[in-house]
């Protein structure tokens, strides 16, 4: 069952990387438009945002590869719970509509927040099911990296760095 949980986490990470890739492209388009309007501050924020989003997406991709590798090399964990993952944690959400309608940096930031929070929730669900000490350690490292990445992304565009007291639902 460990592999099931790891694969599910990998799916969230892959989906987040794809969504963030699209967010970065939209940010690039918005950046071009802002540059034409000679809005220097907006250009700077969008540029910083795009860099952060690309870094977050790269981290998602790197972790997805790690989880998939672990899932394929550690398929058995007899001490792991065999409960079915909760429905809410099974599938990454579809961001297509929100991406299509995103017209501002604020819109893009909420998409990034939600995509990364989805990964964080998948990780915490995995931590509640996987008993392997080394894997749990990796999952916790990933959770911390996502949290730090979100705070740094918000800092890069001078948004509030600490908007939540818990992982957002």
């Amino acid at each position, binding site marked *: 069952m460990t592999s099931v949980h790891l694969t599910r986490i990998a799916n969230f990470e892959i989906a987040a990387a794809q969504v963030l890739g699209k967010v970065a492209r939209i940010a690039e388009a918005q950046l071009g438009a802002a540059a034409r309007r000679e809005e220097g501050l907006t250009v700077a924020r969008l540029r910083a945002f795009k860099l*952060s989003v690309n*870094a*977050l997406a*790269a*981290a998602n991709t*790197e*972790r997805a590869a*790690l989880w998939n590798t672990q899932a394929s090399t550690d398929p058995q964990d007899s001490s792991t*719970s065999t409960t079915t993952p909760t429905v809410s944690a099974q599938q990454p959400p579809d961001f297509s509509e929100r991406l299509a309608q995103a017209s501002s940096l604020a819109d893009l930031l909420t998409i990034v927040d939600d995509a990364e929070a989805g990964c*964080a929730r998948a*990780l*915490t*669900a995995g*931590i*509640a*099911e*996987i*008993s392997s*000490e080394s894997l*749990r*350690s*990796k999952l*916790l*490292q*990933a*959770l*911390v*990296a*996502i*949290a*730090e*990445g*979100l*705070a*740094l*992304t918000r*800092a890069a565009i001078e948004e509030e*760095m*600490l908007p*939540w*007291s*818990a*992982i957002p639902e």
Partner: protein
Amino acid sequence: MGVMPPRIPEDSPDFDVLNSLLQLEFREVALISEIAVGERLDPTEADLAEKMRRHHLAHADVLARLIESVGGKAGEVRERYVLPTPLGDQRRALETLLVSESHLVEMYKFAIGNLTALKLSPSVASNLFVDAMHVAALKTLLELSPSIVALA
């Protein structure tokens, strides 16, 4: 973080683990309160510190509720906590807070990694998530140039 897990055995070591985290959260509240005394912090830094303080209070509440919900007794906030002194100027105080928050993150990682009742993990991991954001925010304020990584 959703539904509370079922009760755990009364002699479970997890109660000690959770109560230790609870005391660390209370200590963090005390440290931030001390740092905020005397208008040491500029408005931006003071606002951030106040948010952190509120988060730690919320985290303490989460832990206390979790302990009680699984059949344990949550520890009380102490009258005094041993805090680093002197806290110095704004930069030194924020550096002290960064050390303390980083320590708390490491304690959470260690604690969650060693919980025997895995079902307790999600609520505790949610606290860890936010405390890790605190660390990144403080590093940013202190201009320590943190970077986005896959595993931290």
